[in-house]
C-alpha cells in the first residue's frame, strides 16, 4: 500500500511541477512578434519569438545548412547578424574565427529570436527547397552500406551539380524522440531530375542511419532539403584525383555519371580505400565507367585483405597507394570525401607531392 502511495505522490508532485513550468514557459517565454529582415529588406517576415534563429528560418522555408540539427556542435549554420542578436554566447565561440566574429557572424542555432533582427544570408540558400519523395529501392551494397533510391513527389524535379548534398530528415521513431536532419551526398545522375540516390553507411548508435536501416521501407515517404554545398568539379582540364572509401563514393558516382554524358576527355583517377573485400561494392559498375569514360581509371586499395579472398589489386593504406602512383601533383586537382582524419592524411600526402592547397577540394562530414 505504501508503495502505491509513494509512487503516486511522486508522480503527482512531478506532474504538478511540470504543469507549473509549462504555464511559466507560456507567459515568460512570450517575446511577442518579431520581424526578421534578410539581406537589407529583400525578404522580411514576422515570427513569434522564443525559438532559435535556425528554427524560425526553417519554419519560413529558408533552410540553413546544419549537420548537428541545432545542437551547436557542427558550426555549419553560420550567418551574419547585423542587429538584434544579443551578446555572443560561449557556445558559439569555438566555431567562429576572430575575423568572423568581427564580421558579426553568429551560429544561427544558438541565437534566440527575442526582438526584431536584421540578418544577411548568401543568395544560394534562397534556392534551397524542401522536397517530399517516395523511397523506391533499398539495396544493401555491403554489410553496412545501403543504397537509398527515391522518386520525387513535390517538387517533382531537382536541379543540382554533381557533388552537392541534401539534408535528409529522420522523423521521430521509438528510440528517437525528435526529428533530426543529417547531410548525405547525392549519388544519382544530375540529368535524372525525377530521382535521387543516396549511399548511406550505418553508424552504430547513429540516429538517422539507424532509422534508415531499421525503420525505413520501400514505398515510405521521406522529406529532405537541398541542394547544398559547393563541392563540385572545377572547370579546368587538370587531372582529377578522387579519394574516398565506403559511402564517400556517393558524390563521385554522381560526377562519373555526369562525365559519361559529357564524354569529357579530362583524365580522372578514383582511389577507393577499404579494409577488406567485403567493404567493396560497385566493382562491376566502375569497370563500366572505365569503358564508357574516355580517360578514367578505378584503383581500389585494400589495407588488410584476407588470404582466402585472393585479392590481386593494390594493398595498403589508400594514402600510400596514391603516393606510389604519382611523382608530381603540382598540375593536378584532388577531390576528397570522408572523415576529417582521412582527409587530413590525404592533404598531407598530396601537398607533399607538390599539389597546391587551392587545388584540393573536400567535403568533411
Amino acid at each position, binding site marked *: 500500500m505504501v508503495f502505491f*502511495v509513494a509512487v503516486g*505522490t*511522486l508522480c503527482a*508532485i512531478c506532474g504538478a511541477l511540470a504543469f507549473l513550468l509549462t504555464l511559466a*514557459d507560456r507567459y515568460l*517565454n512570450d517575446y511577442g512578434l518579431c520581424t526578421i529582415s534578410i539581406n537589407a529588406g529583400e525578404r522580411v517576415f514576422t515570427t513569434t519569438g522564443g525559438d532559435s534563429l535556425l528554427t524560425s528560418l526553417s519554419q519560413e522555408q529558408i533552410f540553413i545548412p546544419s549537420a548537428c540539427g541545432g545542437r551547436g556542435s557542427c558550426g555549419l549554420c553560420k550567418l551574419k547578424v547585423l542587429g538584434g542578436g544579443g551578446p555572443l554566447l560561449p557556445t558559439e565561440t569555438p566555431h567562429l574565427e576572430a575575423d568572423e566574429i568581427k564580421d558579426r557572424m553568429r551560429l544561427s542555432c544558438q541565437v534566440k529570436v*527575442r526582438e526584431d533582427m536584421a540578418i544577411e544570408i548568401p543568395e544560394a540558400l534562397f534556392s534551397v527547397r524542401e522536397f517530399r519523395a517516395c523511397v523506391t529501392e533499398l539495396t544493401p551494397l555491403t554489410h553496412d552500406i545501403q543504397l537509398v533510391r527515391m522518386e520525387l513527389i513535390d517538387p517533382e524535379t531537382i536541379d543540382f551539380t554533381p557533388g552537392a548534398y541534401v539534408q535528409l530528415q529522420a522523423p521521430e521513431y521509438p528510440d528517437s524522440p525528435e526529428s533530426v536532419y543529417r547531410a548525405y551526398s547525392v549519388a544519382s545522375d544530375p540529368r535524372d531530375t525525377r530521382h535521387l540516390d543516396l549511399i548511406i553507411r550505418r553508424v552504430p548508435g547513429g540516429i538517422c542511419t539507424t532509422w534508415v536501416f531499421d525503420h525505413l521501407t520501400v514505398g515510405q515517404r521521406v522529406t529532405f532539403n537541398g541542394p547544398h554545398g559547393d563541392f563540385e568539379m572545377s572547370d579546368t582540364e587538370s587531372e582529377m584525383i578522387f579519394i574516398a572509401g565506403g559511402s564517400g563514393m556517393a558524390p563521385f558516382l554522381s560526377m562519373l555519371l555526369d562525365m559519361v554524358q559529357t564524354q569529357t576527355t579530362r583524365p580522372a583517377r578514383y582511389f577507393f580505400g577499404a579494409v577488406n573485400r567485403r567493404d567493396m561494392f560497385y566493382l562491376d559498375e566502375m569497370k563500366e565507367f572505365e569503358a564508357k569514360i574516355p580517360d578514367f581509371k578505378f584503383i581500389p586499395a585494400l589495407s588488410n585483405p584476407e588470404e582466402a579472398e585472393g585479392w590481386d589489386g593494390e594493398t595498403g593504406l589508400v594514402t600510400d597507394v596514391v603516393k606510389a602512383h604519382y611523382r608530381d601533383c603540382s598540375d593536378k586537382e584532388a577531390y576528397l570525401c570522408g572523415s576529417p582524419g582521412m582527409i587530413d592524411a590525404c592533404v598531407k600526402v598530396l601537398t607533399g607531392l607538390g599539389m597546391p592547397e587551392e587545388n584540393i577540394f573536400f567535403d568533411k562530414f
Partner: protein
Amino acid sequence: MLEQVSLAAQGQPGVLGQLVIIFLAAAFTDNILLSRFLGMCSFLAISRQMKTSIGLGIAVVFVTTCTAGINYLVHAYVTVPLGIEFLEYIIFIVVIAAFVQLVEMVVERFSPPLYFALGIFLPLITVNCAILGVSLFMLAKQGYGFWQSLVFGAGSGIGWMLAIVLMAGIRSRIREDKVPEGLRGAGITLIVSGIIALAFVGFSGMIKF
C-alpha cells in the same frame, strides 16, 4: 509584543527573537559554505568577478529561501501524513530543479545580460549541494515550523552570498599579487576560504542558545 518583551526580560527568546537567532546562526556561525563547506563549485568559479558574484548570490538566496519554504510544506503536508519521508531526497531535488528552471526563465526574460554572464552556473544551482543541504538540515533541526524553515533558508542563502562576495573582494585584491605558480586559481582560493572559515569560527560565541 508585550509577551515578547517579558520573555526577553526572563532571558528567553520569543518567537521573533528565535527567528532572528536562527537567521544569524545560519548566516554566520553555521555558514553553509564556510562551516559546512557545501556549494564550493560555483563558489570557486564565479568568485572571480564581483558583479557576477552578487548576481549569483541573489539568485541563490532566492532559491534557498523559496525551496526551504516549499520543501517544508511538502514535508509537513504530504510526506509525513502519507508516511513516505524516505522519498524526501528525491522529492526535494525535483522541487529544487523545477524551481531553478523557473528562476532561469525569469532571469532570461528580465535580465539577459545577467543570464549570459551566469551562463552554465545558473542551471548548476540545481545541483549545488548547499540548496539540498539547506532543505535537509532544516528537517534535522526538529523543532522548526514553517517560518523558522523560511528564515533558516534565507539565512543560509545570505550566508552563502556573504561568503562569495567576500571571496570576490579578496580575489580582486590579490589579483596583482605574486602567488606561487602551482597555487594560482583554485589553490589560493581554497587556502583563502580556509582562512575565512577560521575567522568565522570566531562568531561561534556570539549566539547562546
